[in-house]
């Protein structure tokens, strides 16, 4: 008789074939050349090209700017939405979520249309606005969730003990909302760093991001080099995830008081 624990077997096989193996393919391709010989040339190539490094750093810069802008704009919004005295209606938060259900490309093209309509030239500014537009909901929602679950008696206690509104915010609300902030940063930073179509459409391909470079290389048959770039991105994302998980754990402990 088949044990129920063995029911996971088909999925395990599937995941080994189509999740683990493909990731190993990236590793394999990035350390070999066209004929399959082992080489580090792909990475040497990347680190010796000024343009490639520049694109890479520029993408990180854009991703950081985008994440910061989303945080600056999104935090107050999430805060207001979570406060019963400032926002009574539950509909407003849904209004922020709805755009996330519309296809990314349609949203981006709509942004391009908007810029055309008000005669804003496509370029770096448009890129940043478009990214903020696309990713802002992903920042607001996790922060809103944490703030919404927060026990308001902490704030009241701080108030009773004589904290000014600024102190209440800085010493009570902000630390308690940290898990939401980490989540939001993760949900905005990771997609921004790996995006490629959005930047292409918003800048008429004038500004190139790392994701676009990867896609172009793969498209042009430079699989080994493309795989090496993908591996570099994978490392960045792995590091970000680990970093944020550590941060989260610490916050959880801190949150227990």
């Amino acid at each position, binding site marked *: 008789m*088949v*044990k*129920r*624990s063995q*029911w*996971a077997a*088909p*999925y*395990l096989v599937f*995941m080994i074939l*189509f*999740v*683990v193996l*493909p*990731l190993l*393919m*990236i590793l*394999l391709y990035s350390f070999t050349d066209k004929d399959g010989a082992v080489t580090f040339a792909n990475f040497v190539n990347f680190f010796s090209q000024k343009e490639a490094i520049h694109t890479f750093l520029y993408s990180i810069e854009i991703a950081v700017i985008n994440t910061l802008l989303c945080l600056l*704009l999104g935090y107050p*919004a999430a805060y*207001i939405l979570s406060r019963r005295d*400032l*926002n009574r209606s*539950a509909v*407003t938060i*849904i209004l*922020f*979520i*709805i*755009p996330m*259900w*519309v*296809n*990314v490309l*349609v949203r981006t*093209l*709509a*942004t391009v*249309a*908007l810029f*055309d*309509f008000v005669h804003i030239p496509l370029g770096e500014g448009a890129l940043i606005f478009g990214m903020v537009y696309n990713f*802002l*909901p992903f920042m607001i929602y996790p922060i809103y969730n944490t703030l919404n679950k927060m026990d308001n008696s902490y704030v009241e206690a701080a108030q009773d003990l004589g904290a000014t509104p600024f102190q209440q915010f800085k010493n009570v609300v902000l630390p308690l909302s940290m898990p939401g902030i980490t989540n939001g940063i993760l949900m905005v930073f*990771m997609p921004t*760093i790996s*995006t*490629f*179509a959005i930047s292409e*459409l918003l800048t008429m391909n004038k500004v190139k991001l790392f994701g676009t470079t*990867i*896609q172009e290389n*793969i498209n042009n048959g430079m*699989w080994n080099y493309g*795989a090496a770039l*993908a591996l570099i*991105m*994978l490392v960045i*994302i792995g590091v970000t*995830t680990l970093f944020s998980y550590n941060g989260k754990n610490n916050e959880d402990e801190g949150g227990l008081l």
Partner: protein
Amino acid sequence: MKKFLAQTYIWILLLMLYAPIIIIIVFSFTESKVLGNWTGFSTRLYENLFTSGAAEPNILQYGNVAIKVSSGVSNSLFKAIENTIIIALIASFISTMLGSVAAVGIFNLKGKKKKTMNFLNNIPMLNPDIITGISLFLLFVAVGVTQGYTSVIIAHITFCTPYVVLCVMPKLIQMNPNTYEAALDLGATPFQAFNKVIVPQIKGGMISGFILSFSLSIDDFAVTLFTKGNKGLETLSTYIYADARKGGLTPELRPLATIIFTVVLVLLAVINIYMVYNSKKQAQRKLKF
């Protein structure tokens, strides 16, 4: 005053978020080829979207030139919509089956094995779609699989199934584990026991898993782009992408985007009103007792 400022801030943000969508909707009601150029009210684009796909079925086979000459929407857009829906249906159906059975398996695993499965299950969710796409592309290339429908469906299953597992798991935790054993003791085969005992209890999770998979699949762009091959298979996202790259957006995409947006809006509104209504009812019940 404070409340006024807060509300103003929220509505300015919302206006910013919705401005592009509103422009698309407004300009779906005019004929002009270029967006932003109002040439009078017309529902012509909507008519094109719904009629020409059926009216000129043969033109597609004579190549791209014929499509461009025809006045209406090219059949390729229709084909792309059809592909998107077929792929989403197949992928989310298989994902739901695979994920539900896997969830039962993982739920009954213990210790290290369970941890490993959960870790593997998390990978596709954490991976950016470009990495998922490239990794599968390299696999298909290395193995020599011709890319097309099958490769896209497999790719979609890989990133949909983890969400099904996540949807089904809470239902299993709520379930009484002895009912399955009881069914076996009473002579049911494992398949019968699964079908008659487990499925009814995890049905809710399976349905939400299916819906989630369907919407993920429809929405996907990057993974599809890398796994669709070069035999001309297009889904709606890749069609829009190719179209936008050529310079102009097909005007008929405006009414299409409007329709998609309206459907999403209505669906979400219904779901949310239903949920608010339900929670109010529950709150009232609690008050009574």
